[in-house]
């Protein structure tokens, strides 16, 4: 976060010395775009806030994903990953915790990859920028890729066919 702020500040200062008017124009663009996305962003935040009330805590997640059927676990993990929204610094420690509870790599992979690639909750924002059709298809493709990655992980780590 600090890095991002510093980088932004450096660019703003350089831009300001090169051309004051252009810098002001850049801020206008920034504000305009921010206002445009405010409504969908608010909806996303509401969905996330409501979701994190209903979504169970970490321990429950590892209980759910530690079931006896590898494929069902993988499927559930990919669905949870698709509908949740959490930053990497929470998701990967959670992955580590799942691993510590002997959840398979294949299941963890399904969870983290869908988490990163599929955005059910961010759908309103994606729709605003790229339209409904593209947003739907892109998410479906991403889900397919995530499942493929999970299967490959399962094969390579020798968790499948045993």
């Amino acid at each position, binding site marked *: *976060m600090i890095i*991002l702020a510093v*980088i*932004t500040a450096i660019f703003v200062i350089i831009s300001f010395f090169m051309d004051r008017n*252009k*810098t002001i*124009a*850049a*801020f*206008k*663009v*920034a*504000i305009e*775009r*921010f206002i445009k996305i405010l*409504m*969908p*962003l*608010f*909806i*996303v*935040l*509401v969905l*996330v*806030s*409501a979701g994190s*009330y209903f979504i169970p805590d970490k321990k429950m997640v590892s209980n759910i994903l530690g079931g006896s059927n590898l494929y069902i676990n993988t499927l559930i993990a990919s669905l949870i990953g698709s509908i949740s*929204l959490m*930053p*990497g*610094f929470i998701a*990967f*420690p959670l*992955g*580590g915790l799942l*691993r510590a509870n002997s959840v398979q*790599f294949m299941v*963890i*992979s399904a969870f*983290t990859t869908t988490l*990163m*690639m599929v955005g059910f909750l*961010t759908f309103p*924002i994606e*729709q*605003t*920028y*790229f*339209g409904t059709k*593209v947003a739907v298809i*892109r998410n479906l*493709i*991403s889900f*397919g*890729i995530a499942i*493929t*990655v999970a299967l490959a*992980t399962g094969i*390579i*780590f020798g968790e499948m066919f045993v």
Partner: protein
Amino acid sequence: MKNKLIYVFATSLFLIFIAISFLVSFKPGKIIASNLIDYSFEILQFFPFAFILIGLFQVWMKRETVEKHLGKNSGWQGYFWAIILGGCTFGPLIVALPIAHSLYKKGAGIKIILTYIGASAICRIPMTIFEASYLGVPFTIVRYSVSLPLVVISSIIFGSYLEKANYKIKIKE
């Protein structure tokens, strides 16, 4: 317009729900409200910076430059840059989407944009370091070597389809 009405309706409904929750001390409503405040602050930590950078990009970056390196006819280099850009993107999908949109507005090709969105999801550098340290380097290598080619291939297929269908991104007002 229709979308806007739905948003306004949903927002008012939500605010009424929160207000009533506080009036009658309905606990889930209160928790959701405090979650909302937490998440809003979290998002607001990086959103303004991302949008200022987008603004600067929009003003300074020449259209020809974007077209040359990320345009329809940029060849394999376009995909290369899309992946590098994706890896350097801060923040989740929610940040990559407006960046992708402004790249498109500057003349980047749709296949390249789709690759960028995919790459920003799967190979952000800070996230990769996190992943490798918690789940091990082999896990990360498998994920990269399977997902990255698939992202590029699917972007090419989906992008060509959209180009043929003469798809134009227009931000909804």
